[in-house]
């Protein structure tokens, strides 16, 4: 494992994270305020909408097809009953509830108990932290027999962050805590993604693909992660034929899992309407509630006749990068999955800080690239700036009325630029480190001086 001396043991980190969340959940004002923040709860991930869905489901209303809620108690008017039952339940194309049905099923039995719900969220977060710890351990094993990079002064590259630090960075990230307290359901999608990566690193093909399928089922975009996870499964794998075989296996496991999840949902809610409701809302961005993304104001202001065109362009744009990035950075599947998660978190229709907590949690897994980054200071400032000003500008617009929609949109743009610079800079750093690996610095240059570690390089 790592040679760095760590004062914190995993147990203390997890205990502290657990206690912190439990304590904050006991400030009900804080939790409900966070749950109402548009930066935390999007239409897709809002706990309030989940509660509504569970409530309707519990009362026998098909939550996805715009049915009618019809509560009849035993003794009622005979006449009124006839009138009510005459109302047809017409099934319209409907975007009522954009929640995967299995989430309904998950919360169905426990929703009446806030403590259980809170515990589910806290444990979800802790599980992600634990898996990040495990992933770091596997990665350290891998890098133990990888080629070392000789750095400035002839020193070998120091190992990256240890697992406890990675887990702590995730667990104590303010974004993670806010998202957890706001009870955003993005947590379960994140959990599936991280589990998929973990299983991928453990070379457990079936579970890895199942988890990615689960994440896809929950929020669609993680379908892209099949590629980096397949890359993880095939680390140092043999020839082309083996890879081809595992590709086919992985694809079939993925599709099979996804299919069975859909089937299970169908069994649960007894209709296929959820398909349109959940994925239609994600893909058509029909709910234009503001968030930190770039979509909402764009499509509020977009001229009607161009709306479908830009919708298609924007959605394709998100998926475009999966294959080129995986080809170019195929040696770094962990980084590829980080990059794809960041792209999802930046360019999806309904991003929230929960997405940021995922990619910021995955980033320390590639901690060795940090020293090649050029704009770390700028990125940190952009994130701080936007996360401080977003609630303020939202308040100015929606509550005080002294600002307008442009204020919040501008902050969304700043946040987006921060994410974009983060992606560009980390990609640059990975490529730069890769270059160091491929063409190491000679020990002593021709003129007898020691060479600089930050050689002047150009992109060709």
């Amino acid at each position: 494992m790592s040679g760095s001396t760590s004062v914190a043991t995993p147990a203390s980190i997890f205990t502290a994270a657990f206690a912190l969340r439990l304590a904050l959940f006991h400030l009900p004002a804080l939790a409900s305020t966070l749950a109402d923040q548009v930066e935390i709860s999007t239409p897709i991930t809002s706990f309030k909408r989940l509660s509504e869905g569970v409530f309707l489901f519990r009362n026998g209303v098909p939550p996805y097809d715009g049915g009618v809620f019809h509560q009849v108690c035993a003794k009622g008017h005979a006449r009124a009953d006839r009138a009510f039952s005459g109302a047809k339940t017409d099934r319209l194309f409907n975007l009522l509830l954009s929640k995967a049905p299995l989430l309904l099923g998950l919360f169905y039995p426990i929703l009446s108990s806030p403590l259980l719900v809170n515990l589910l969220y806290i444990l979800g977060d802790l599980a992600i932290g634990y898996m990040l710890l495990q992933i770091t351990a596997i990665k350290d094993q891998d890098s133990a027999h990888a080629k070392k990079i000789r750095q400035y002064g002839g020193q070998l590259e120091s190992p990256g962050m240890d697992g406890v630090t990675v887990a702590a960075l995730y667990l104590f990230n303010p974004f993670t805590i806010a998202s957890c307290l706001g009870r955003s359901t993005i947590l379960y999608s994140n959990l599936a993604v991280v589990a998929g990566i973990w299983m991928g690193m453990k070379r457990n093909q079936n579970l890895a693909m199942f988890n990615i399928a689960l994440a896809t089922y929950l929020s669609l975009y993680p379908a892209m992660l099949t590629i980096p996870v397949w890359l993880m499964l095939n680390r140092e794998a043999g020839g082309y034929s083996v890879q081809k075989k595992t590709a086919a296996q992985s694809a079939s496991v993925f599709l099979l899992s996804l299919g069975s999840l859909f089937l299970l949902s169908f069994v649960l809610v007894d209709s296929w309407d959820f398909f349109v409701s959940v994925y239609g809302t994600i893909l058509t961005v029909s709910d234009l509630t503001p968030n930190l993304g770039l979509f909402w104001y764009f499509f509020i202001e977009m001229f009607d006749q161009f709306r479908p065109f830009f919708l298609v362009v924007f959605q394709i744009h998100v998926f475009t990068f999966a294959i080129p990035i995986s080809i170019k950075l195929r040696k770094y599947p962990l980084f590829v999955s980080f990059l794809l998660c960041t792209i999802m978190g930046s360019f999806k229709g309904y991003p929230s800080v929960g997405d940021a907590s995922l990619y910021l949690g995955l980033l320390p897994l590639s901690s060795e690239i940090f020293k090649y980054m050029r704009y770390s200071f700028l990125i940190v400032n952009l994130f701080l700036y936007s996360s401080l000003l977003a609630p303020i500008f939202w308040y100015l617009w929606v509550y005080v009325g002294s600002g307008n929609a442009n204020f919040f949109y501008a902050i969304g743009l700043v946040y987006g630029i921060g994410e974009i610079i983060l992606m560009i800079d980390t990609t640059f750093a990975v490529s730069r480190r890769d270059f160091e690996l491929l063409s190491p610095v000679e020990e002593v240059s021709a003129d007898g001086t020691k060479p600089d570690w930050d050689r002047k390089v150009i992109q060709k």
Partner: protein
Amino acid sequence: MRRFPDRILLLSGALLCFATISSPAAATSSSQHAFAARDTVPVLHAPEAFHEQLILKPMNDGSVYSHFQFTTHVGTMMDEEHFDGAASNIFTHYNLFPRSIGQILHSFDVEELHLTFTQGRWQYGDWGYPLAPSVGTGVELSAWMNDHTYQAEANWKGLTNTLSGLFCASLNFIDDTISIEPKMAFRHEGLYNVHARANTSSENAPRKLRYGSLPHENVCTENLTPWIKLLPCKNKAGIASLLKSHKLFDTRFYSMAVHVRPVCEDELCRVKSLELTQTISTVFDVARQDGSYDWSLSGLFEREITQACPLASTSNVIVHLPQTTPDSNQYQLGPYPPHKTYTTGAADNAQEIAVYDLRKTYSNESSTPFQLSLNWENSRPKSAHRYFTGFGQERGGLSIEVHNSDSQDREAILLDTLPWYLKLYLHTFSVEVNGKPLANQKDVVKKMFYQQAVDRSRPAVLELALNLPANSMVKFSISFDKVFLKYTEHPPDANRGFDVGYAVVTAPLPRQKGQIGYGGLDHSRVYQGRDASLVETRQVSSDTIAEDERDMIRVYTETLLVSLPTPDFSMPYNVITLTCTVIALFFGSMFNLLTRDFQEEEPTTAKDVKGKGKSKVE
């Protein structure tokens, strides 16, 4: 007669408008005595007299009709023996009669004048016939003019211009293009011909009627103020002190008139006089404030009568008492008893009237305000209110209050329709009875029908079958999120907000005869009478005849205005440009990183590279 240029007329009118009208000297007590004795002994000199009267009439639909009438008599002529020539001679002395009106009549040779300002429409179906003669919306002006000298045309022009100035209204727009001369519809209101003289054969002296109306003339405070100035006591004392413009114009109907006509003071018309009648008719929607049909003078007018007008010969407040039967809703009139009650009309149209004489009330120098109120025993049978709660443009709550003031539980059905851009959360639905949250909603909500809204295609429908506890206020609350609309979905006046229609409470009530005070009940019965055969056939087929014995009344809540968050409507191009730039920044940079490889830069000179590198490291 004189022919004024228009401009001078307007100017003089404007001056009149602002000039204080010469206030009448204190009326002599002798004139009042004489007036009291008028009925029996005809007096030659018809004295000046001023009468004030307020008639209050509760309507069937719960509104209250108030009619102010101020009448000023001035003896224009002696009897025939003492007739001293032209009527105009009288207009040199003014006591109670307003000089401005007198001068106008004199200058333009006007015999009769009818000027009405009206706002709103008189609902004949609901309110019956008005006490005021003229209730046409807008301004109506008609005058009988003496045409001895063939100056009627010019005088009419002068009259409209002068009245325009006097009442600060656009009466001068009643010009030749809209003035008419009706032949049949209007007759003399006056009781004799001013210019018919005994010694001449001018019984049919040339008189011309001129009539004009301005439908779009808005009536407001600036018209009321000059009108009040015509009164002897202004609005300082007596009934006129109730005239507060804020309340008068906040009514369903408002009409203000000035009528001048010649009248006879005795049966043989030997004593003749000129009568100025000023009226204000308003219909107050008393149920609008709190759903109650109770009213009081101070509530209606926000003013009080603290003294009678000392110049008035009579000063009465008259209340038309609502008809009730022993088994229907009873009312209480206060102060009770009034000074006098009597009945007018025949058996079917009998109308009980209560009279309060303010001169008696204030005969002993007291200055306590005159209180008059009418309270229903069961004034709020069922009423419903609805309002938004919360603040900001992100989310909110909706509350519906249903009051049941019956002494027994009542069934009712509540229907509310909410547009799709309010995203309701049914799991937040809660019921409170008399301010206390209800644990088991099924005690009140017997049945519930909820249809979810579908974005951009249908509204949410909430229908509740209720069992309202006796004497209770049941409050339903539900919270919602406001949807962010595309900029093209906003109306042109986006910041005004969106209207949300009313909710309806339908409640069966035991059928009662002659019931007054329940809105719309009479109409539903009329309707049922007309469709009696239809109803009967339905009753035969239905097994729930008992319920049809009841009238279903519907109580409507307020409509609401919801303001949704608006985007900046001027931004489309900016947003498209900026967003696309940011996305292009990412795409370009990523494309660059993915398609190009690193390569060591060829040092141009070794020194240069070394220097640069070192400075960077250190």
